[in-house]
């Protein structure tokens, strides 16, 4: 085992997951490729969504891949950062909206 949990070289080995479960792995990659094709959303818009989700999921492989991918699509650094803020806003909003749950409980117990 390496001394690090994450190794950039492992990203290139992603396709190897099919080795131990070929049918499911192949179905996943077929689905993955299809999702990112131009559709009702442009491939550029999808790449930006992927970049934002890569950050909320805090996946180093995905951040590596979709930073490069968005650059290749001509996305500017300002657009990339705004996309990440969208992800961050949803993350923090999702935390804070649970504050209502806390308030409800407090009001019931100690209102």
């Amino acid at each position, binding site marked *: 085992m390496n001394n690090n949990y994450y190794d950039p070289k492992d990203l290139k080995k992603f396709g190897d997951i099919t080795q131990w479960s070929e049918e499911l792995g192949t179905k996943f990659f077929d689905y993955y490729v299809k999702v990112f094709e*131009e559709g009702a959303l*442009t*491939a*550029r818009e999808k790449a930006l969504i992927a970049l934002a989700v890569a950050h909320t999921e805090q996946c180093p492989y995905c951040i590596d891949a979709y930073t*490069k991918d968005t*650059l*290749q*699509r*001509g996305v*500017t*650094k*300002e657009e990339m950062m705004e996309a990440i803020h969208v992800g961050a806003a949803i993350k923090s909003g999702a935390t804070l909206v649970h504050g209502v749950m806390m308030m409800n409980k407090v009001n019931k117990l100690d209102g």
Partner: protein
Amino acid sequence: MTKLKTQSLHKRESELAQTNRQLEILSNGIFKSGELPKFKDKIAETGQFPLRPKKLEILQINLGYMCNQVCEHCHVDAGPDRKEIMTRETMMQCLDVIKNTGAHTLDLTGGAPEMNPDFRWFVEEASKAGIADFIVRSNLTIIRANKKYYDLPDFFKKHNVHVVSSMPHWTRGKTDKQRGDGVFDKSIKALQELNAVGYGMPGSSLRLDLVYNPSGAFLPGDQATMEKDFKKALKEDFDIQFHNLFAITNLPIARFLDYLIASENYEDYMTSLVEAYNPAAVENVMCTNTISISWDGWLYDCDFNQMLELKVDSKVKHIKDYNEDLLNDRNIIISQHCYGCTAGAGSSCQGKVT
């Protein structure tokens, strides 16, 4: 982030100004260790070695390495400090070839070809030869660089020149990062002036195409999608129109190689190129239909080989001895920089090749 240099590698006396040093780098390291396959071995896998010319279609003439810009990624290592300029004597030799060639396209490049003092004379003479497609690669800012160039749009129009211009992005930040401060604003003004005389307008026979190359160590995106994005942004923001966008991959030579090494991106970039290798692109790679002529009349398989000083492997090596049939019977010289033309949809001075 690396800071934009203001001098050529030659002026800085960088070791990369020596072409043999560049070729050494491209043949050693990850290619020598076998971590990545050499280009020769890669094309041999599909029986495409040795690479041979097909019908000659494009004569590309470099009028000199002098330029008003010092772009970060310039494969020519062009700049104001480069003094190599084609003489009228060599131009006359080129004209003899242009009159008799079977090529349908004449492509003038540089540096900034307009800075050659005999540029206008040469265009006037060459346009008489009746070549179907007469391209001048104009960097746009030259049109706004000095009063003596202000009338270039009209001059191009008069000689029905097809203008092909670099435009790395539709935003100021990305453009100026690659090409220098103020380049974006001048380029926009120049494009508006070209539009004003009819260049790039829908249905116009005055062709105006743009060239996109990435601003860093990554490959270009899909050409058609990029064209759509460029057209939308330039029209909405500046009321600018153009015909086609050529997406070109940065080749790992000269200043781009210097940038890759300085930014510690060289190995990753070469890996990206090799991973994106496309045998279908090899079929149409531009060295198979182009001859590149340098400012001093030497002949090369392409503009990149010219910058690496790899003269054609033929008895005919100079414009003064030009013989199209003899020249077409040759093996094309390759090295690892050629991966830049075979990645993804392929890359050439006319954009993608597949």
